[in-house]
Protein backbone atom coordinates (compact mmCIF):
# COMPACT_ATOMS: atom_id res chain seq x y z
CA UNK A 1 0.00 0.00 0.00
CA UNK A 2 1.63 3.25 -1.14
CA UNK A 3 -0.64 6.34 -1.36
CA UNK A 4 -3.77 4.56 -0.24
CA UNK A 5 -6.61 4.31 2.23
CA UNK A 6 -9.35 1.74 2.66
CA UNK A 7 -12.69 2.72 4.11
CA UNK A 8 -15.12 0.11 5.40
CA UNK A 9 -18.35 0.28 7.36
CA UNK A 10 -17.93 -0.41 11.07
CA UNK A 11 -21.01 -0.37 13.29
CA UNK A 12 -23.04 2.68 12.30
CA UNK A 13 -19.89 4.51 11.19
CA UNK A 14 -16.66 3.88 9.36
CA UNK A 15 -13.16 2.50 9.75
CA UNK A 16 -10.35 4.06 7.73
CA UNK A 17 -7.08 2.18 7.32
CA UNK A 18 -4.38 4.40 5.87
CA UNK A 19 -0.82 4.06 4.65
CA UNK A 20 1.62 5.95 6.84
CA UNK A 21 2.09 8.76 4.33
CA UNK A 22 -1.69 9.18 3.90
CA UNK A 23 -2.18 9.42 7.66
CA UNK A 24 0.61 11.98 7.84
CA UNK A 25 -0.85 14.15 5.06
CA UNK A 26 -4.40 13.92 6.39
CA UNK A 27 -3.22 14.87 9.87
CA UNK A 28 -1.34 17.85 8.42
CA UNK A 29 -4.38 19.01 6.41
CA UNK A 30 -6.72 18.80 9.41
CA UNK A 31 -4.27 20.48 11.78
CA UNK A 32 -3.51 23.21 9.25
CA UNK A 33 -7.24 23.84 8.80
CA UNK A 34 -7.84 23.94 12.56
CA UNK A 35 -5.03 26.50 12.89
CA UNK A 36 -6.46 28.58 10.03
CA UNK A 37 -9.90 28.64 11.68
CA UNK A 38 -8.35 29.84 14.93
CA UNK A 39 -6.32 32.59 13.23
CA UNK A 40 -7.59 36.14 12.66
CA UNK A 41 -10.07 35.80 9.74
CA UNK A 42 -8.77 39.08 8.30
CA UNK A 43 -5.11 38.08 8.64
CA UNK A 44 -2.90 36.26 6.13
CA UNK A 45 -3.24 32.90 7.89
CA UNK A 46 -6.96 33.10 8.55
CA UNK A 47 -10.06 32.10 6.57
CA UNK A 48 -12.56 34.94 6.01
CA UNK A 49 -16.21 34.12 6.61
CA UNK A 50 -17.08 34.85 2.98
CA UNK A 51 -14.71 32.07 1.84
CA UNK A 52 -16.05 29.68 4.44
CA UNK A 53 -19.77 30.31 3.91
CA UNK A 54 -21.64 31.37 0.76
CA UNK A 55 -23.91 34.42 0.61
CA UNK A 56 -27.16 33.54 2.37
CA UNK A 57 -29.28 36.21 0.67
CA UNK A 58 -29.59 37.45 -2.92
CA UNK A 59 -28.43 40.92 -1.79
CA UNK A 60 -24.83 41.38 -0.58
CA UNK A 61 -25.88 43.73 2.23
CA UNK A 62 -28.38 41.19 3.61
CA UNK A 63 -25.72 38.48 3.39
CA UNK A 64 -23.27 40.66 5.32
CA UNK A 65 -25.92 41.19 8.00
CA UNK A 66 -26.52 37.43 8.12
CA UNK A 67 -22.80 36.83 8.66
CA UNK A 68 -22.75 39.46 11.39
CA UNK A 69 -25.60 37.68 13.18
CA UNK A 70 -24.50 34.06 12.68
CA UNK A 71 -20.94 33.92 11.30
CA UNK A 72 -19.08 33.62 14.57
CA UNK A 73 -21.30 30.82 15.90
CA UNK A 74 -21.11 29.01 12.56
CA UNK A 75 -17.32 29.23 12.51
CA UNK A 76 -17.31 27.94 16.08
CA UNK A 77 -19.38 24.89 15.05
CA UNK A 78 -16.98 24.08 12.20
CA UNK A 79 -13.96 24.49 14.50
CA UNK A 80 -15.60 22.26 17.14
CA UNK A 81 -16.20 19.49 14.59
CA UNK A 82 -12.57 19.66 13.40
CA UNK A 83 -11.39 19.58 17.02
CA UNK A 84 -13.53 16.49 17.73
CA UNK A 85 -12.03 14.66 14.75
CA UNK A 86 -8.49 15.52 15.85
CA UNK A 87 -9.22 14.55 19.45
CA UNK A 88 -10.63 11.18 18.36
CA UNK A 89 -7.62 10.50 16.15
CA UNK A 90 -4.11 11.00 17.53
CA UNK A 91 -2.74 10.39 14.03
CA UNK A 92 -2.18 6.63 13.68
CA UNK A 93 -2.92 4.62 10.58
CA UNK A 94 -6.39 3.58 11.75
CA UNK A 95 -9.32 5.94 12.32
CA UNK A 96 -12.58 4.47 13.62
CA UNK A 97 -15.62 6.76 13.64
CA UNK A 98 -19.19 6.32 14.82
CA UNK A 99 -22.01 7.99 12.86
CA UNK A 100 -21.41 11.33 14.59
CA UNK A 101 -17.70 11.06 13.86
CA UNK A 102 -18.44 10.42 10.17
CA UNK A 103 -20.58 13.57 10.08
CA UNK A 104 -17.79 15.57 11.72
CA UNK A 105 -15.16 14.24 9.34
CA UNK A 106 -17.38 14.85 6.29
CA UNK A 107 -17.93 18.46 7.35
CA UNK A 108 -14.19 18.87 7.92
CA UNK A 109 -13.18 17.38 4.56
CA UNK A 110 -15.58 19.68 2.70
CA UNK A 111 -14.57 22.88 4.50
CA UNK A 112 -10.83 22.12 4.52
CA UNK A 113 -10.82 22.46 0.72
CA UNK A 114 -10.91 26.22 1.27
CA UNK A 115 -7.14 25.97 1.85
CA UNK A 116 -6.52 24.55 -1.65
CA UNK A 117 -9.14 26.00 -3.99
CA UNK A 118 -8.47 29.31 -5.75
CA UNK A 119 -12.12 30.40 -5.58
CA UNK A 120 -14.79 29.74 -2.95
CA UNK A 121 -15.75 26.08 -3.24
CA UNK A 122 -19.31 26.89 -4.39
CA UNK A 123 -17.83 28.78 -7.38
CA UNK A 124 -14.98 26.39 -8.18
CA UNK A 125 -14.90 23.98 -11.06
CA UNK A 126 -13.45 20.67 -9.94
CA UNK A 127 -9.80 20.04 -10.88
CA UNK A 128 -9.51 17.54 -13.71
CA UNK A 129 -8.17 14.42 -12.03
CA UNK A 130 -6.42 13.36 -15.25
CA UNK A 131 -4.27 16.49 -15.22
CA UNK A 132 -4.13 17.57 -11.57
CA UNK A 133 -0.47 18.18 -10.85
CA UNK A 134 -0.27 21.11 -8.51
CA UNK A 135 -0.19 20.27 -4.84
CA UNK A 136 -3.39 22.24 -4.11
CA UNK A 137 -5.26 20.49 -6.96
CA UNK A 138 -4.18 17.07 -5.79
CA UNK A 139 -5.08 17.84 -2.16
CA UNK A 140 -8.57 19.14 -3.02
CA UNK A 141 -9.27 16.10 -5.22
CA UNK A 142 -7.95 13.85 -2.49
CA UNK A 143 -10.25 15.46 0.10
CA UNK A 144 -13.25 15.13 -2.22
CA UNK A 145 -12.52 11.46 -2.85
CA UNK A 146 -12.11 10.70 0.84
CA UNK A 147 -15.38 12.55 1.60
CA UNK A 148 -17.15 10.43 -1.00
CA UNK A 149 -15.76 7.22 0.47
CA UNK A 150 -16.53 8.10 4.08
CA UNK A 151 -20.13 9.05 3.33
CA UNK A 152 -20.81 6.23 0.87
CA UNK A 153 -19.67 3.59 3.31
CA UNK A 154 -22.40 4.59 5.78
CA UNK A 155 -24.97 3.35 3.23
CA UNK A 156 -23.25 0.05 2.62
CA UNK A 157 -25.24 -3.00 3.66
CA UNK A 158 -23.31 -4.49 6.62
CA UNK A 159 -24.22 -7.93 5.31
CA UNK A 160 -22.56 -7.20 1.98
CA UNK A 161 -19.45 -5.25 2.90
CA UNK A 162 -17.83 -3.03 0.28
CA UNK A 163 -14.41 -1.56 0.86
CA UNK A 164 -13.61 1.72 -0.84
CA UNK A 165 -9.99 2.26 -1.81
CA UNK A 166 -8.40 5.66 -2.33
Amino acid sequence: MRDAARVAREGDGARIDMAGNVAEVLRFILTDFADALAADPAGPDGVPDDLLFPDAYPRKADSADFRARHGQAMRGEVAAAVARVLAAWPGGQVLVLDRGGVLDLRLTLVHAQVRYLRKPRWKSAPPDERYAKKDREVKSLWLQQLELMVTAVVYVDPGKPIIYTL
Partner: protein
Amino acid sequence: MHHGGSWIVEIHNDHVNTSTGVSLVLEELIGLSTEDGRQMAEDIYEHGSADFTPVSQAEAERLVAAFQVRGLNAKLRKARRA
Protein backbone atom coordinates in the same frame (compact mmCIF):
# COMPACT_ATOMS: atom_id res chain seq x y z
CA MET B 1 -33.27 42.25 8.75
CA HIS B 2 -36.60 41.75 7.03
CA HIS B 3 -39.39 40.71 9.32
CA GLY B 4 -42.56 38.70 8.75
CA GLY B 5 -43.66 36.76 5.71
CA SER B 6 -42.58 33.38 4.51
CA TRP B 7 -39.08 32.49 3.44
CA ILE B 8 -37.86 29.65 1.29
CA VAL B 9 -34.61 27.81 1.97
CA GLU B 10 -32.76 26.74 -1.18
CA ILE B 11 -29.89 24.27 -1.48
CA HIS B 12 -27.73 24.70 -4.57
CA ASN B 13 -25.56 22.18 -6.34
CA ASP B 14 -21.79 22.63 -6.24
CA HIS B 15 -18.72 20.70 -7.32
CA VAL B 16 -17.52 19.90 -3.82
CA ASN B 17 -20.36 18.18 -1.99
CA THR B 18 -21.17 14.67 -3.16
CA SER B 19 -24.75 13.40 -3.48
CA THR B 20 -24.18 10.94 -0.67
CA GLY B 21 -22.80 13.72 1.53
CA VAL B 22 -25.84 15.92 0.84
CA SER B 23 -28.14 12.99 1.53
CA LEU B 24 -26.43 12.33 4.85
CA VAL B 25 -26.82 15.99 5.89
CA LEU B 26 -30.52 15.98 4.94
CA GLU B 27 -31.05 12.91 7.10
CA GLU B 28 -29.14 14.44 10.00
CA LEU B 29 -30.64 17.91 9.95
CA ILE B 30 -34.24 17.56 8.88
CA GLY B 31 -34.86 13.88 9.49
CA LEU B 32 -35.47 12.82 5.89
CA SER B 33 -35.51 9.08 5.31
CA THR B 34 -32.54 7.65 3.44
CA GLU B 35 -34.69 7.27 0.32
CA ASP B 36 -36.10 10.82 0.50
CA GLY B 37 -32.66 12.23 1.25
CA ARG B 38 -31.20 10.50 -1.80
CA GLN B 39 -34.08 11.72 -3.97
CA MET B 40 -33.63 15.31 -2.87
CA ALA B 41 -29.85 15.12 -3.36
CA GLU B 42 -30.50 13.81 -6.88
CA ASP B 43 -32.93 16.69 -7.54
CA ILE B 44 -30.29 19.20 -6.43
CA TYR B 45 -27.72 17.58 -8.70
CA GLU B 46 -30.04 17.35 -11.72
CA HIS B 47 -31.87 20.69 -11.44
CA GLY B 48 -29.16 22.79 -9.82
CA SER B 49 -31.12 23.49 -6.64
CA ALA B 50 -34.06 22.39 -4.49
CA ASP B 51 -36.47 24.43 -2.36
CA PHE B 52 -37.99 23.72 1.03
CA THR B 53 -41.49 24.58 2.21
CA PRO B 54 -41.71 28.26 3.27
CA VAL B 55 -41.06 29.03 6.95
CA SER B 56 -40.51 32.13 9.06
CA GLN B 57 -37.39 34.16 8.39
CA ALA B 58 -35.88 33.21 11.74
CA GLU B 59 -36.40 29.51 11.05
CA ALA B 60 -35.08 29.87 7.50
CA GLU B 61 -31.93 31.61 8.78
CA ARG B 62 -31.44 28.87 11.39
CA LEU B 63 -31.69 26.20 8.69
CA VAL B 64 -29.42 28.02 6.25
CA ALA B 65 -26.80 28.48 8.97
CA ALA B 66 -26.99 24.78 9.87
CA PHE B 67 -26.67 23.70 6.22
CA GLN B 68 -23.78 26.09 5.60
CA VAL B 69 -21.96 24.83 8.71
CA ARG B 70 -22.18 21.37 7.11
CA GLY B 71 -20.65 22.72 3.92
CA LEU B 72 -23.76 22.98 1.75
CA ASN B 73 -24.51 25.94 -0.51
CA ALA B 74 -27.75 27.04 1.19
CA LYS B 75 -29.56 30.35 0.73
CA LEU B 76 -32.92 31.87 1.54
CA ARG B 77 -35.31 34.06 -0.41
CA LYS B 78 -38.64 35.65 0.32
CA ALA B 79 -41.60 33.61 -0.90
CA ARG B 80 -43.79 35.33 -3.48
CA ARG B 81 -47.38 35.90 -2.46
CA ALA B 82 -49.84 33.62 -4.24
